[in-house]
């Protein structure tokens, strides 16, 4: 399964729910798989996508929140797994597109290429984790769960063909409006 195919499955499974994408190839593929206002594309802050997802999940407990992360970016913020394990936001689904490489920067191998096991790391930090190696497994893993969940999608690299909007504030406005928290357009109150 290519990352783009896997991303399409996540978009399909998310329905109208928000999806936060890590910068670079995960965000590019999310745009290519299906641009929608409920997509929050990051253009920086490698590693922080899962943390944005945690905050969003806490703010909106009634909404499922999906994060499309990479193996390299999750490795940059492994403490996030401990926080997810502590808080257990049941509405959070963290999909890690594990291509065993820093694909956005030229394909350097990540530690997962040498056996580092992010699913085991998640479990050790009290987060439910499943490995999805096929499209069927990925579809099944997206089902609603009782606890926060990490899905380690084993994917092959697929060169992204498109890039999301560059305007960060546009992305934010569109996203917040789509998920029911529009920023006021005029001054409110006194």
């Amino acid at each position, binding site marked *: 399964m290519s990352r783009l195919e896997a991303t399409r499955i996540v978009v399909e499974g998310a329905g109208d729910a928000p999806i936060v994408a890590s910068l670079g190839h995960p965000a590019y593929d999310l745009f290519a798989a299906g641009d929608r206002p409920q997509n*929050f594309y990051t253009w920086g802050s490698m590693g922080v996508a*899962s*943390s*944005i997802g945690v*905050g969003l999940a806490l*703010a909106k407990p009634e909404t499922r929140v999906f994060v499309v992360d990479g193996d390299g970016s999750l490795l940059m913020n492994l*403490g996030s797994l401990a926080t997810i394990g502590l808080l257990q936001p049941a509405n959070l689904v963290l999909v890690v597109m594990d291509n065993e490489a820093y694909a956005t920067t030229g394909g350097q191998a990540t530690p997962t290429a040498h056996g580092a096991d992010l699913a085991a790391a998640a479990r050790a930090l009290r987060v439910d984790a499943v490995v999805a190696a096929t499209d069927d497994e990925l579809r099944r893993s997206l089902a609603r769960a009782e606890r926060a969940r990490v899905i380690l999608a084993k994917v092959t690299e697929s060169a992204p063909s498109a890039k999301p909007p560059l305007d960060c504030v546009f992305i934010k406005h569109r996203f917040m409006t789509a998920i029911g928290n529009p920023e006021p357009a005029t001054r409110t109150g006194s």
Partner: protein
Amino acid sequence: MASRPAWAVGVCAGLYAAGSRDVVYVPDNPLSHVLAELGEQYGDVRLVLATREEEAFGIAAGLYLGGRRPTVMLQSSGLGNSLNAITSLVLPYQIPMLVVVSMRGDAGEWNAAQVPMGRAVRSIFDAIGMPHTTVDSAAAANDVVHVTGTTAFGTRTAAACLLPRRVTTS
């Protein structure tokens, strides 16, 4: 009920008055008074522990996107850990938050390892274009934190309040 230092009581009242009900923090000794006060006196304020300051800014950004008015609390030494999230997420996306920084490395410091970052905090905030205000006395804490928070959320610009050691150790 333990009595809290006046500056800590003021910080809590100020962030609450600015509409913040979510405080994402990395622990710090003086800030423990703020956390204890929030826990005891502000039952509707959610305290969220982060493992690292950059993560705290990410969580706060997500809270804002979800319609909340987040506060981030950290020690100044953790500012270095936060800079990528501040400069490539919080600032370019114009995600407002109130940032409360407990200072190390300023007057009264005993640990040399805290001094270089402590000295650099204001210059770093200036260099990245993030507004900051210093709480000059315990009596000013409530008002400074309140106004800084209100301005941050009103103008969609993250802004910091610095708490010097001579205030937090008073």
